[in-house]
């Protein structure tokens, strides 16, 4: 233990959130001396996957609200867990049978996160599952039951759709064709002048899309405020369409089994350890005041002080007022009809996405089957997200009941075996840097709390990598590694 403090570390990384962990992966072949700590006894921080027991301590730790007087607010607040009194009798299993993902983002197959995991050889230890259908919730009307309508999400899909009239199909096809190369010089004139206007209005004016189809398109943008601009909306739809089929038929996004981005953080940290990094969970490193010409010092809980040439951490507070509300619910039925294979040769999807109309902003429900390893067979985990307002917790609970009713067709006022609720700041989107003595320190912004993983969250990781690597940095080597030695024993057989 004493040896920790003797020599200065090249880098001390505080926190094992996704961005810190990817930095550790990026530095794993650099021969730098890296100390990587996390105050929790699990990996992943705000991207962790929690057992029910861990969810309880997470909720206790983040139960506080944000008083108006506070300028800085904690990233996660108003957390609470709930379960029915007879949850176990209704089927709730032991706490470790669950793995609730704090970062359940789906990852588009085109995402740079996936290509970085492949080029860095870290992908092999992660099991990726397919994200299947996207649905829009249709409320009951004219005596018909509420239902989920599947959004056709490829041109083939539109062709074969029974529910869209022929005339509408033509305008939709025209729109899809346009989106596929909306950034080309041919298409730009059509939308650039309206780039910041509302996508809905643009769809009406330019493509004469009917209301139903517009709702499909807007739902697919996965904009949490439901008001995508033309620019951001077209980019989102383009990502959706061009991601389709990249790693196999029938899906445009994947999800890491066992708890989403938590799994990627763990694999990246393991790569950091394989490269020689020292890992200490349950350890908070606190910055000590340092003189102008000194290196930064950090104090570990056991009284050891370490010095660092650079310090990378995550922002613990934010000035951002806007937040999302998230309800993670363990549901006592598997909702199997959401996970059907619709294209021949497609993998069985483990994730489905449902957009529920709501005011002032829509609610997105992302449903994970037990194939994700997040709950026992016969149950599923539903992640509901909306922009936080005073009443959003209640709205999410209502939305869950509506969703389960629309799928199961029978009334269940309490479909839930367990739930974790919290609000998470949308963050400031910018990393912050400051100097502690001679040591530069960078803090990552909180990850985008969006439905789909945003590649823009990776930019800060590269900034941090350049900062730490300094003059040695060669961009071509960023997250591009050979397989490690030892993988070649393949043909030797020990008799």
């Amino acid at each position, binding site marked *: 233990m004493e040896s920790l403090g003797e020599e200065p570390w090249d880098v001390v990384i505080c926190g094992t959130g996704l961005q810190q962990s990817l930095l550790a992966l990026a530095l794993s072949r650099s021969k730098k001396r890296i100390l990587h700590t996390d105050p929790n006894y699990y990996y992943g921080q705000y991207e962790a996957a929690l057992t029910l027991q861990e969810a309880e301590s997470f909720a206790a730790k983040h139960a506080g609200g944000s008083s108006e007087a506070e300028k800085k607010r904690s990233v996660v607040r108003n957390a609470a867990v709930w379960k029915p009194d007879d949850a176990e009798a209704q089927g709730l*299993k032991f706490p470790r049978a669950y793995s609730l993902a704090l970062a359940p983002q789906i990852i588009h197959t085109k995402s740079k996160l996936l290509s970085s995991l492949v080029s860095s050889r870290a992908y092999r230890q992660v099991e990726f599952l397919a994200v299947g259908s996207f649905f829009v919730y249709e409320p009951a009307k004219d005596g018909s039951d509420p239902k989920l309508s599947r959004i056709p999400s490829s041109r083939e899909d539109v062709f074969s759709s029974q529910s869209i009239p022929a005339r509408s199909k033509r305008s939709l096809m025209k729109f899809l064709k346009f989106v596929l190369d909306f950034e080309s010089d041919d298409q730009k004139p059509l939308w650039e002048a309206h780039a910041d206007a509302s996508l809905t209005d643009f769809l009406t004016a330019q493509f004469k899309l009917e209301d139903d189809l517009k709702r499909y398109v807007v739902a697919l943008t996965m904009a949490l405020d439901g008001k995508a601009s033309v620019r951001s909306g077209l980019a989102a739809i383009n990502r959706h369409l061009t991601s389709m089929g990249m*790693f196999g038929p029938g899906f445009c996004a994947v999800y890491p089994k066992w708890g989403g981005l938590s799994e990627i953080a763990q694999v990246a940290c393991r790569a950091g350890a394989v490269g*020689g990094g020292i*890992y200490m969970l349950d350890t908070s490193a606190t910055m000590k005041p340092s003189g102008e010409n000194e290196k930064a010092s950090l104090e570990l809980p056991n009284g050891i002080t370490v010095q660092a040439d650079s310090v990378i951490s995550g922002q613990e507070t934010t000035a951002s007022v806007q937040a999302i509300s998230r309800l993670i619910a363990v549901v006592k039925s598997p909702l199997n009809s959401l996970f059907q294979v619709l294209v021949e040769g497609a993998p069985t999807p483990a994730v489905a996405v449902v957009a529920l109309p709501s005011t002032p902003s829509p609610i997105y429900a992302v449903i994970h089957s037990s194939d994700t390893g997040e709950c026992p067979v016969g149950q599923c985990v539903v992640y509901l997200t909306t922009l936080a307002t005073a009443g959003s917790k209640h709205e999410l609970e209502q939305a869950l009941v509506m969703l389960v009713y629309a799928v199961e067709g029978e009334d269940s006022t309490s479909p839930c075996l367990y739930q974790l609720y919290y609000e998470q700041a949308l963050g400031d989107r910018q990393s912050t840097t400051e100097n502690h003595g001679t040591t530069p320190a960078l803090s990552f912004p909180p990850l985008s709390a969006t439905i789909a993983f945003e590649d823009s969250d990776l930019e800060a990781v590269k900034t941090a990598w350049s900062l730490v690597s300094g003059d040695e940095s060669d961009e071509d080597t960023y997250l591009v590694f050979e397989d490690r030695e030892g993988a070649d024993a393949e043909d030797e*057989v020990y008799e």
Partner: protein
Amino acid sequence: MADSAGAPRPSSSVKLVLLGEAAVGKSSLVLRFVNNDFQENKEPTIGAAFLTQKCNLPTRTIKFEIWDTAGQERFASLAPMYYRNAQAALVVYDLTKPTSLIKAKHWVAELQRQASPGIVIALVGNKLDLTNASAAAAGGNSEDEDEEGGGGAAGGDGGDESGDARKISTDEAKTYAEEESLLFFETSAKTGHNVSEVFTAIANAIPETSLKSTRGPGASNAVSRGGDEQRVNLTGPRGDAAKDSCAC
């Protein structure tokens, strides 16, 4: 990585994880098994993420995917993904160092808590070459594969006048192993004594039923509806390379 693309892999893969106190010789045991090699004064494990080795049994071939701790055990910082789907574990102690058996018992408990219920665990007392029991023990030179880089392990314990540095009797460890239904061996990674026997015994102990799929029965809460067909391969539709051996 692409050279063996598409080659058939008739053998069953078994994920085996290593556990044990720093500097007991975890990596050395694997190095002996995989490369039939031993390095004196080996540095703490860096760069070894993952090794593979086939083990031929009369009726089947087992391909071990051996995961090293990468040092994450030192401050109790192993991630759940390390234990996940492990079908076998090698819990190693240094039979010249009493605290290492205490630590080994801790790891056995941790495996019983975290890993798949059917996991095969082998308890291995290493550094037999430092005791009288080993005919092969070369006197004097202690087997110092100090994984901790100065963390005070085998070095000082090695040179008993009698040449016997054993501190943990075979009976003591064996009794414990029997109580917990563990396989038990005393080995020397340095001389190679009993090393292949450990892996063969593990291979034999893995139930046939858990070999059906390439990934085994899954972790405690893993109960898959679909098997492997729902896995997505990131190197292309139904691509190759993914089944190839791997490192970080």
